[in-house]
């Protein structure tokens, strides 16, 4: 009983940080109740009515909380609760097996939920506990002989654990063979409904005025592995959603899916890289500014050169993209786009509009205007801070004329507003800047703390041009992350990690291991399988070759396990004297005088004497000697005499009796010790 409870507890542990606290509490209470009842026999278990009511109540509670029983979170919660209620009514072996089955289902749900490297040992340990529980259930439920329950040997929990461990270890080679060679599906039959729990990340809106403290999360947004030379630090802009709809306070993403994407002339070197995008609740894929095309057919490559999918990125996603950091427009900006990207609310930020117009009037070209605005940021007493004061409805006015302190969002917002006021098409681009180089894994880690926003302006002759006003105010931001610039940003452990070099190095190793795990294990798929076959020397392998390899591996494993386990278990080996005695018995059996199981040496001597009187003397003598050596008082197990007995048995030749025909067939060698 304790074992079934332990298996269920393990299943609960896998989901402890995902399910609601009350689910854990209810499950733990049920486990405690069951354990108390089985140990003390004083706490009665609930009756059938109470159990049914409890089950219905819990189902209703899950329904009320999640509005569904489908989906991973709701399903896991329901499984945990039902397993716990089942535990309350376990009586028979079948009930306990059901609890273990529930626990294995929880393991499956945990795998579907998260498959990080850190959790894998936990999953394996849980599988181990479940298997041991099976052994304990099977042992405890087989009815022992009445009255003989407390036999000399008992199969204890320790034995169950070691037996299960041994069995699982024997199964590992098969698991590896199946994992590598069992052909994977390339599509999916059905999709798992997922709950829409919010995860931090880049959103579709930006209101710099409402944020008074930028919390930088150390969480990884994605990892980028360049197959070409990586771009210079000041070019590592990772393009995300473009915000071009401004109401004076908030920038929004405009979903203009009908707009035509402006063709671009890609200049400079092409950068080719693979992105490992961590799951989030958003639908953006990130690429180095500016991607050439959509990495996959299911990704929409928008008019603003964003990459967007229909489904949220709910699992680790990898894609290969190609980008150029320098581009030039191949066509003039369409009128509609120009109108969109110069729009400003007429009744807001009027001082800024005035400022922009007067500044524009003082210079000749748009390009010079951009420079003059940047010059203003540099010399106008502006400062970078992650804890800026809040801004009012006229956020740009407030920022430019009052506070003059802000982070990237403030500068990008104000800059774009000024450009638009001067009738220059401009927009805010959000994404990430930079990334930490991981020398062990050879990739860049881009974290949520690297989130950034910058501006794009349309300049005649070159098209959309990236301008990062933040870089003017805080040039170091280009080379270093926010955490380097402002050590008090981020949480305490994050800061510790960032300020302790050896810890940071260790962390990088760990991250590289995780990245390897994700790339090689988690994302192991059909292509990887074929790749392995190619390395084994198959030309253009397919599913057939995979099946062949899989079948060969399976057969090899079966043979191996049969060799490990299938041998007839060896009986206990008799000692020297016993072996000599058995040899003597075999010789006599060949002569047609087999020893029956119930005959001791002396009784056997009598049988020999009556069957073959001619052998009475030599054989009877030997048998008596054996009895003396084995049991006698005067010469117990004397080594020299045993050796002599051995020699004489070896030398013994029994001639077939004149009338007795030699026994037919090979006599079975006795397995028993004498």
């Amino acid at each position, binding site marked *: 009983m304790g074992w079934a409870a332990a298996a269920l507890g393990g299943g609960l542990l896998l989901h402890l940080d995902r399910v609601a606290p009350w689910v854990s509490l209810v499950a733990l209470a049920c486990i405690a109740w069951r354990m108390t009842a089985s140990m003390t026999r004083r706490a009665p278990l609930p009756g059938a009515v109470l159990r049914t009511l409890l089950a219905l109540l819990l189902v209703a509670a899950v329904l009320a909380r999640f509005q569904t029983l489908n989906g991973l979170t709701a399903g896991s919660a329901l499984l945990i609760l039902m397993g716990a209620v089942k535990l309350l009514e376990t009586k028979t072996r079948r009930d306990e097996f059901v609890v273990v089955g529930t626990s294995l289902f929880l393991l499956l749900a945990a795998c579907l939920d998260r498959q990080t490297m850190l959790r894998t040992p936990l999953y394996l340990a849980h*599988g181990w506990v479940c298997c041991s529980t*099976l052994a304990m259930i099977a042992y405890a439920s087989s009815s022992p002989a009445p009255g003989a329950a407390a036999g000399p040997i008992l199969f204890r929990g320790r034995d169950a654990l070691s037996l299960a461990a041994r*069995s699982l270890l024997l199964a590992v080679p098969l698991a590896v063979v199946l994992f590598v060679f069992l052909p994977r599906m390339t599509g999916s039959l059905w999709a798992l409904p997922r709950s829409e729990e919010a995860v931090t990340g880049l959103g579709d809106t930006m209101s710099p005025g409402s944020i008074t403290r930028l919390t930088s999360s150390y969480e990884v947004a994605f990892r980028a592995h360049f197959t070409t030379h990586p771009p210079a630090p000041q070019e590592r802009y990772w393009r995300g959603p473009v915000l071009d709809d401004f109401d004076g306070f908030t920038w929004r993403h405009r979903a203009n899916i009908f707009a035509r994407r402006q063709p671009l002339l890609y200049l400079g070197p092409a950068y080719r890289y693979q992105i490992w995008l961590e799951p989030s609740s958003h639908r953006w894929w990130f690429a180095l500014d500016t991607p050439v095309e959509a990495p996959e057919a299911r990704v929409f490559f928008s008019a603003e050169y964003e990459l967007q999918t229909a489904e949220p990125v709910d699992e680790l996603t990898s894609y290969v993209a190609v980008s150029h950091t320098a581009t030039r427009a191949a066509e003039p900006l369409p009128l509609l786009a120009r109108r969109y990207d110069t729009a400003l609310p007429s009744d807001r930020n009027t001082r800024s509009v005035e400022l922009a117009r007067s500044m524009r009037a003082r210079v000749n070209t748009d390009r010079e205007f951009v420079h003059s605005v940047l010059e203003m940021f540099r010399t106008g007493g502006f400062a970078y801070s992650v804890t800026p004061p809040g801004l009012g409805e006229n956020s740009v006015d407030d920022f430019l004329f009052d506070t003059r302190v802000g982070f990237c969002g403030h500068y990008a917002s104000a800059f774009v507003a000024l450009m638009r006021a001067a009738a220059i098409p401009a927009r805010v681009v959000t994404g990430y800047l930079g990334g930490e180089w991981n020398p062990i894994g050879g990739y860049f880690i881009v974290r949520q703390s690297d989130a950034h926003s910058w501006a794009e302006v349309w300049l005649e002759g070159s098209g959309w041009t990236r301008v990062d006003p933040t870089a003017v105010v805080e040039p170091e931001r280009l080379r270093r992350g926010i955490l380097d610039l402002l050590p008090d940003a981020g949480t305490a452990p994050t800061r510790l990690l960032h300020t302790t070099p050896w810890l940071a190095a260790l962390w990088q190793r760990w991250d590289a291991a995780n990245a390897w795990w994700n790339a090689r294990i988690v994302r192991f798929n059909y292509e990887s399988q074929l790749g392995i076959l190619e390395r084994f020397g198959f030309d253009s392998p397919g599913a057939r070759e995979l099946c062949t390899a899989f079948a060969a591996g399976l057969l090899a494993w079966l043979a191996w396990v049969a060799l490990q386990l299938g041998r007839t278990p060896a009986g*206990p080996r008799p000692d020297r004297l016993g072996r000599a005695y058995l040899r003597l018995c075999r010789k006599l059996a060949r002569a047609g005088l087999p020893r029956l199981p119930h005959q001791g040496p002396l009784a056997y001597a009598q049988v020999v004497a009556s069957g073959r009187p001619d052998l009475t003397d030599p054989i009877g003598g030997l048998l008596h000697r054996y009895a003396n050596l084995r049991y006698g008082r005067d010469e117990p197990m004397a080594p020299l005499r045993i050796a002599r007995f051995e020699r004489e048995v070896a030398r013994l030749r029994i001639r077939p009796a004149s009338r007795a025909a030699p026994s037919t067939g090979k006599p079975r060698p006795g397995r028993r010790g004498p």
Partner: protein
Amino acid sequence: MKAYLRARIAQWVLRRQGRDTLPLTLRRQRLYILPSRAGVGFGVLLLFMLLAGLNYANSTALFITFLLGGFMLVAMHLCHRNLLGVRLISAIAPPTFAPRDGYLQLALESGAAANRYRIAAGVDHGQTIAADLPGGGSGQVVLPIEAPRRGRIRIDRLCLTTTHPFGLFRAWTWVHVPVEMLVYPRASGALPLPAESGRRPGVRSSREVGADEWIGLRPYRDGDSPRQVDWKAYARAAPLLVKEYAATGSELRLLRFDSLTGLQTEARLEQLARWVLDAEAAGERYGLELPGTSIPPGQGAEHRHRCLTALAVFGVDPAPRFGVDPAPRSDVIP
């Protein structure tokens, strides 16, 4: 339908294996193994996990599924091996008095260096009882056998089975060792022992039991009462000897079926059984006369057994092919 199938399978197994003699070592050829119900459930669970893992291309779930699949195959081997090489040394069913349950005692030997757990034995498809066999050691299983009526209970087929270690598989074997259990009639009836004496009607004795004339000592034989053993001599390192008394002065009872008029056959047999026990306990010599059978007077455990056997099988088919079936337990399957 189920019973018919079982009977057909039993016939096939018997044809395949032939009859067995003890001691018997369980070898590969006679071991059968199938997933238990829990094993089937486990398999279905694995199938579901496999589908989910393939569908979501979830490597962790797939690996764990494969691992558990391999585990199941290993469990099959282990279960098979747990039974392989076990030796059945003896199967004895001592006689009992109806309607008290008798028992079948099986002596098992591990035959392996490692411990064997939960080797269960049962009669045919009946309930099983398990024993653990220490490595290189032996154990025994005592199976209760219902004996509601007198007669012979013939157990044709034993089943040795195990689900150890994980309960996912059940390995078993059939052992065709005919074991016969005699069920004596219930010893009941209040009539006094008949005073009739067959040979010496004139001599009547009022002496105490055990006050008979001492004749001498003879070697101990199976069935002798421990009370008659000369323990003092044994303590002096002599072999086990039994003091023999001549019941010269005692009654010579002739227990006759025909003398019990006015009773049903079964009641008569029960009364006779009572008398046999009483006479034996009193240390008297007694003989038994049944229609068609006559047992000359005698004494001792063996004689008692002879008399009670005659009572047990009285009127019952003396040479049953597969056992007369007085108890519903002994399923008659060849």
